[in-house]
């Protein structure tokens, strides 16, 4: 089972990883920026993920140790920039024929209403919305259902 997590906030990433580790046997792969996700997506060495959990608002990249910054695509700002990075990542995922059926979870502080336009546009795609306000059990249950594990080993006490 392969779970990918795209989350930039270190505190939240730490918590989510802890929740997922408590419920699923595999260690999720963490990516912190849109550029890192796209790089991973292009990599041929990684196996097909069973589910990808996306934060929606993500930075494009991180500062490299030499202080350089990878340039963003020309249409970066026009396509929503930081505010729609997770959506773009999901679309990039599905654009790969091998990954077109991979389910995506939009796990975000944004509300359903904030994402209404995008969710409508993505109708027919394996996309699922979950608010970060929800308890961890919901994330585990949703991911479990998506990866075919109906009874993931969740213990609420293990989270946070």
């Amino acid at each position: 089972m392969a779970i990918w997590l795209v989350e930039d906030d270190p505190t939240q990433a730490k918590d989510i990883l802890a929740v997922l580790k408590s419920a699923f046997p595999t260690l999720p792969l963490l990516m912190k920026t849109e550029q890192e996700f796209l790089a991973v997506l292009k990599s041929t060495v990684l196996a097909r993920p069973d589910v990808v959990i996306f934060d929606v608002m993500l930075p494009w990249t991180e500062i490299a140790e030499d202080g350089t910054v990878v340039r963003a695509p020309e249409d970066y700002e026009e396509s929503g920039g930081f505010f729609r990075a997770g959506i773009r990542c999901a679309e990039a995922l599905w654009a790969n024929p091998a990954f077109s059926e991979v389910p995506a979870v939009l796990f975000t502080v944004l509300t359903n209403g904030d994402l209404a336009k995008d969710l409508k546009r993505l109708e027919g795609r394996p996309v699922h919305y979950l608010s970060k306000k929800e308890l961890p059990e919901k994330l585990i249950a949703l991911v479990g259902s998506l990866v075919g594990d109906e009874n993931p080993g969740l213990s609420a006490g293990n989270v946070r």
Partner: protein
Amino acid sequence: MATSAGISRPTADKVRELVMTALGQTKLAGMSSVLQFIAESFDADGCILWEETPGSRLKADPPVGEFFAVAQWFRRMPFWTTYKLDLGCVTGQAVLAGKTASVEDAKIDPRVDFSLPFFKRTGIRSFCAIPIPCPDDRKGSLDLYRLPPGGFAPDELDIARRMADLVPGLFQAIRDRVSFGVLRELDLHLQEAEQRIAAEAGDAAVNEALQRACVLVGDAFRSLETSLVLEDRLRTPNRYDVVATTFSQHVSKKSYVAGEPGLTPWVLEHQRPVDVFDLACFEQDRPILDARYPDITWSDRDHVLDIMAKRFDLPIDDLPPVSFICVPVTVGERLLGALRCCAALRAPHYYAERDVELLKLLATRIGQFWDSSQRQREIAEKIASLRSITEGVSRLNRLAQTEFQGQHPNLRGVDVEAVGVLRSAVIAADIAAVVNMSAAGGPAEATLPPGEPLAPGDMAAVLTAAEALRAGNNPQAGAVAVAVPASCERIRHMIAAPLPADGAVDGVLVAASAGEREFTPLALAVAGLVAEQISLYHDLARTLDGRREAERERREAALRQVRTYQNLAHQLRSPVLAALRKVSEELKTNLPPLVRDQLASIRGSLSWASTMVWSTQMFAQLTECGEVLANLRPVTRMDLLALVQTAARDEQERLDPDRGIDVMVSSAGFVVLEQRTVWMDLELIEHAVSNLLDNAGKYSVPRSKVEVYAGVSKNDRFHVTFRNKGLRILPQDVPNCVKRGWRGEQAKLVTGSGSGVGLWLVDHVMKAHNGELLVLPTTPDGWTEVKLLFRF
């Protein structure tokens, strides 16, 4: 001795002398000198040149007609007025027979009626009549008179006939010379006048030139009255005023209209000359005259005859011919007026038909002068109008600009000024008004120059014109001539221009003239321009009103937004601070490491949340009043150091441990505060420090340090400095760093969150401390420094 022509030398000499005498004459009256020469050549006491009157028909059977004196000379009598010589007399018979007649003693000659006044007054006893041809196929006679009886010898008659044969030609030569002279003199005079007027245009100069021209013509025609009537097409079109006359005390009628009764109006209406040989001897010629001048009325005649009778102190029947000629003054096909001469006071006492041609030439030259001066005045008026409209619109724009700078522009004042501009630029505009009309079709309201109310009739006409234009509903029509209501007695001409607004006619600019003068195309253009200006101002006023209203609404909305920010921030502030305090207190207790780590992490988040709440409040405060209010107090080293260290710890908690960034505070420099005093609002400084640490943390390269240290700067300020290695700040970006909403391009890529107000807020916090936020460009070795500078 005889000449080759068979003429005796003495006769030839006489003839040469006669010709020389004639060629020396410069006036028609000089013909008397010619007759004197002939008479004295034969020792005669008088000489008269007779010519058949224009109404005579000598070739008819029986012949009818009379003779009049073309010219005369008497040794003792200065003047002989009688000219009505009938055909039955000796002279008449000689002319009809074409043979010289000689009377040796009039007293006993049965052919002569010696009882005639002529013989009594002159004492003439003998005379001869020599028939001669006259111009225009007329016949005449040169008569020589002697006081004593005895008649003329045959050789005398032979020489006299030779001289008489020359008389018509000599007379014509004198006439041509006089004609050329007057034409030349008039032309020179008017040329000089034209040059003078071109240099300093003025009506007085034109009138003076016309009067002088009139006098010149009068002199040439020896007339009792010479008058010039002209149309001032710019001011009084279709009215012909007497602009010059040589007989002003008796010319009571000062203006004419073509077609009204009278000789001059007939000329104006038909644009044909009128030529009457004798207004006194009138009735017999009347059928001919009536046929020649259909529908003419002779109402001027009695007046002229009365004047002539008084002038000559003679009964009307004894007057010399009272001739009248009047010719139209034209340029091309265009009628400008008329020029007339009446009653020749000096010989010849009549105007011949040939004089009409001369007068027409003179009239043509005067017409050219008048037309030129009218054109010049028209050009001058156009220039004045254009200058006036240029200056007026400029004045109007300045006024409008001043009004629009105020909160409540006085559009009525602008309209009043616009009306004044129109009146200044359009000479004929006696009345000007802006009629504002409500969109709902309600009553119109006229704006007029102050202190110039309109009479009810005029106001009604102006409003009617405005309504007509609105009814036409063509806002882009420009200025047009509009009909004057029949009920309006004063106004003669009107023009109106719509004031468009939103595709409809919002108002109308009206100009009216009480004079004869119609509005010119330039006046229409000027009115159109002024109307466009007014529309522009009205439109601008509406736009400004709209914008001011929108601005007011925007400000209200912004204020509501500020209040909302303040309210939300205020509501957030209490729980966040409570939670922060609680977590901070818990962290002071003995806790298991895992719990401590968790609480420290929560504290970091709460600290940042607290800074965000504060930022929201500050943002609202700055938006509302433009400055941050600080509650300054002396700060201790411990308080400030603790504040910085806590903020650094919180920042460390928020940073991604994978990036390996260490936040370090050097406490050494803070010791300065133990010797010197710095005033701070620690709550503001806490958030300023958090902001700067957050920036440093976010934009540092992995595995680097964020360093905080304090000290005294070279210019004796207390500084707290934050330095790190990461995204570079270029020199040109330094001024932008403190601008509200500015974010570097690379900064946007590495962290999505952030609104670009952090440094802007810190800058204001420092200003509230009378201090300074100093952002330095990244050094070559990669260090970026930001300093908070405080005065001691």
